[in-house]
């Protein structure tokens, strides 16, 4: 019987969603009950799963063709278990927090419906045992984030942000789907279970796959032996590279990597709990989670791995730079999220998926904390988000301040908070791949400390700069309790053995699938590189920020290019969106004037014209008729008799 319990992970939030959709959206209190209840059920089941009390359920066949099976099944390995706990745990806390945060919104029933469908999709991603199922829930996550970002749909900006998020995700999923399909071509399976992949890998490859490669590549790419990370796979193994990049493309969209990072800051148009849940702790982490899920496959392409590492690294510093000059409290956090995700992706690309997962967990704690605390601040100030309109809050909303500060320290990587350990572990993984990644990472850490300190100093210290900031009020208990819990997790997150939990498992998987596959060795770079340099730079960042911003009423730095996010939005608007619009208008012109106008209407007019001309023969004159009659007859006779 217990094999069915696992389905509650999916059924509970789905049931809540359906109930809210059908009726409960009119009764917010019941909706909240259903939604929070389902989240609790999920968390409880997740705990049971993590403890091993609930086994994997029997998968059922969803699509079955010869050569292509998609089952709906669950995989409960350490990776999934850990992620499941985080998703459901943080999710539950955010549900609870939302009760307070959304208390005054009349359509909160709908909001909780959105949260529930998000929970459904997100747990689905985590437990998926194959990529199609993962893709299904992946899309579901995109859809629910669309709903939640666009929650205040009356605002033009919110509606646009929702669209942007969905379209960016779709664009990425375009690549992701190609990746999945290529994977299927190569492996003959879409399962992510290590044993199945390994089996498919050995028997792999439809015979004609090579036909899209050049002949030379076909020879080298018949995969007689199993390659590993360290250079066995030639970089010209185009199809494998396509596969890896395709899979990574999914991550680029979901985790908002450069160049599809633009949707995430805009997504802050949603209510703050949504930002916390989706755009900090869980959904954006799904990309990283997915990469870790398919990590053994990623290693088939060295090029792919390098691209992953490079994009991650670039996003990390790029977003951190932008964050330095943002003024909206949520946007700062959003860019910091981008930056941290860049870290994680870089770690995956550098061969440290365990480090990435470790950082993912700790980041979930403190970023959720930061967002929720920021929400609390916003709530306290009646929807004020500009940090330059805050100030002097530290003693007026002390609990929020303390939790926010803990989050900030954790994010900055100050020991002994969670972020310190995970980030150091991650940096050492990067160092193992290439010192350049390491150094960029360290600089990013400096920047992180800098902008977070800037945020805290400007928002919480100094004189209150607006009327609202003079009389804030502390949030209700239902909001602060999650804050406290998350603060505790952010503090101790580095000590509870998450890292070794994942590390061991990854080693197992790698060995199971690819005998000589390797992940980066843990903490081999030495204490100096791992702890001292980052620590020093973090302190330097904090110090410089305090020095620059303490007591200032305006921003002493004014770097326009950073404040304008490197003009990426404008660039995309002009180039891609504008180009697409122009192409669309051009083709529409062709369609309506050439195809429909000239050809279709033209032929109709020609028909009418011919009719008009032919009727002119019918002049009504009897002589004319007689003439035509005789002429026709004579011509017919002449040509019939004498023409040949």
């Amino acid at each position, binding site marked *: 019987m217990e094999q069915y319990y696992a389905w509650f992970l999916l059924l509970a939030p789905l049931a809540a969603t359906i109930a809210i959709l059908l009726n409960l959206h009119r009764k917010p209190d019941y909706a909240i009950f259903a939604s929070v209840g389902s989240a609790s059920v999920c968390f409880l089941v997740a705990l049971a799963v993590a403890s091993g009390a609930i086994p994997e359920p029997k998968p059922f066949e969803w699509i079955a063709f010869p050569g292509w099976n998609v089952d709906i099944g669950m995989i409960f390995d350490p990776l999934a278990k850990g992620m499941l706990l985080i998703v459901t745990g943080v999710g539950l806390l955010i549900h609870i927090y939302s009760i307070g945060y959304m208390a005054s919104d009349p359509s909160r029933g709908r909001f909780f419906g959105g949260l529930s469908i998000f929970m459904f999709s997100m747990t689905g991603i985590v437990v998926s045992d194959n990529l199609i199922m993962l893709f299904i829930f992946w899309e579901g996550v995109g859809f629910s984030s669309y709903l939640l970002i666009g929650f205040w749909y009356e605002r033009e900006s919110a509606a646009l942000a929702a669209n942007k998020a969905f379209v960016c995700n779709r664009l990425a999923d375009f690549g992701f789907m190609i990746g999945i399909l290529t994977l299927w071509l190569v492996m003959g399976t879409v399962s992510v279970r290590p044993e199945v992949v390994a089996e498919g890998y050995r028997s792999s490859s439809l015979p004609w796959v090579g036909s899209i490669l050049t002949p030379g590549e076909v020879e080298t790419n018949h995969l007689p032996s199993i390659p590993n990370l360290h250079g066995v796979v030639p970089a010209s193994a185009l199809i494998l590279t396509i596969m890896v990049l395709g899979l990574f493309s999914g991550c680029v969209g979901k985790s908002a990597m450069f160049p599809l990072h633009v949707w995430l800051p805009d997504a802050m148009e949603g209510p703050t709990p949504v930002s916390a849940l989706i755009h900090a702790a869980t959904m954006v982490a799904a990309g990283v989670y997915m990469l870790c899920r398919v990590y053994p496959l990623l290693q088939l392409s060295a090029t792919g791995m390098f691209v992953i590492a490079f994009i991650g690294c670039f996003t990390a510093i790029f977003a951190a730079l932008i964050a330095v000059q943002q003024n909206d409290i949520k946007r700062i956090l959003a860019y910091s999220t981008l930056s941290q995700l860049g870290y994680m992706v870089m770690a995956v690309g550098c061969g440290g998926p365990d480090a990435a997962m470790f950082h993912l967990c700790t980041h979930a704690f403190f970023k959720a904390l930061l967002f929720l605390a920021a929400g609390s601040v916003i709530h306290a100030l009646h929807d004020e988000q500009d940090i330059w309109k805050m100030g002097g809050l530290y003693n007026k909303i002390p609990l929020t301040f303390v939790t926010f500060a803990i989050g900030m320290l954790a994010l900055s990587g100050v020991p002994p908070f969670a972020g310190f350990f995970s980030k150091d572990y991650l940096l050492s993984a990067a160092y193992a791949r290439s010192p350049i990644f390491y150094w960029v990472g360290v600089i990013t850490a400096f920047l992180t400390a800098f902008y977070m300190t800037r945020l805290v100093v400007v928002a919480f210290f100094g004189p209150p700069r607006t009327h609202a900031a003079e009389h804030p009020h502390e949030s209700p208990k239902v909001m602060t309790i999650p804050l406290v819990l998350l603060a505790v997790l952010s503090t101790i997150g580095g000590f509870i053995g998450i890292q070794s939990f994942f590390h061991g498992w990854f080693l197992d998987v790698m060995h199971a699938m690819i005998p000589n596959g390797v992940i980066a060795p843990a903490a081999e770079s030495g204490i100096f590189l791992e702890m001292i340099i980052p620590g020093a730079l973090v302190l330097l960042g904090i110090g410089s920020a305090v020095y620059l911003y303490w007591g200032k009423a305006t921003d002493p730095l004014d770097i326009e290019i950073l404040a304008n996010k490197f003009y990426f939005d404008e660039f995309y608007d002009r180039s891609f969106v504008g180009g697409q619009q122009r192409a669309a208008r051009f083709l529409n012109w062709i369609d309506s004037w050439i195809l429909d106008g000239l050809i279709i209407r033209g032929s109709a007019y020609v028909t009418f014209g011919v009719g008009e001309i032919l009727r002119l023969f019918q002049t009504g004159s009897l002589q004319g008729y007689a003439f035509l009659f005789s*002429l026709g007859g004579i011509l017919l006779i*002449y040509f019939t008799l004498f023409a040949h």
Partner: protein
Amino acid sequence: MNALFFWLFSGGMIVCALAVVLNRNAVASALCFTFAIVFMAGLFVMLSAFFLAAVQILVTAGAVMVLFLFIIMLLDLSAMEHIPRPKMWMGCSLVLALGFLLIVAKTLAGTPQGFVAQSSLRTPGQIHAARNEMETGDAITQSEVDQRDDTHRIGYLLFRTNTSNGRTSYVAPFEITSLLILVATIGVIVLCKQDERPRPKPREEITREAPPVEPKETSLKT
């Protein structure tokens, strides 16, 4: 001698025919037509169709043309021929005429003359046998031809009732012709019957009228 009469009759006929077409006066045209018919009757005589020559003069020249003349006089058409002849239609008709004559000329030039020359049968005996076999209507020997005149032969063909062996008899068309004449009679009555309706409106006001059964105005076709 033969040639002389031929040219005389045919020349006269063609001149008269041209006069019919070219003359502006309808009465003169009709008279010319009568003369043309008379010349044609001459040609008929030359072709030893004596009966038809007589019929031609009696019926066509005597009855039909008189009818024409009668109508021309009745309708008083003299005023109508002062409109100049349309040059365009003259040109057109000339084109037609030349075209048709060209075709006839080429046809006649390329065709052996007559059925006898056309047929693959050559000797008189063969022809006779073939005619008998082909159940041609008037399959009689040359001597019989010499003995009977054309009136006899026509009458025989028209009215004979012995049609065994599929022999031809033209009694059917003859009967139908009577039907046809009956129809023509009805037609003339129907078309020219005077009824009690008032005289037609003056010419300018006449528009397209609805059928007489239920008089009402219909719109003019544009």
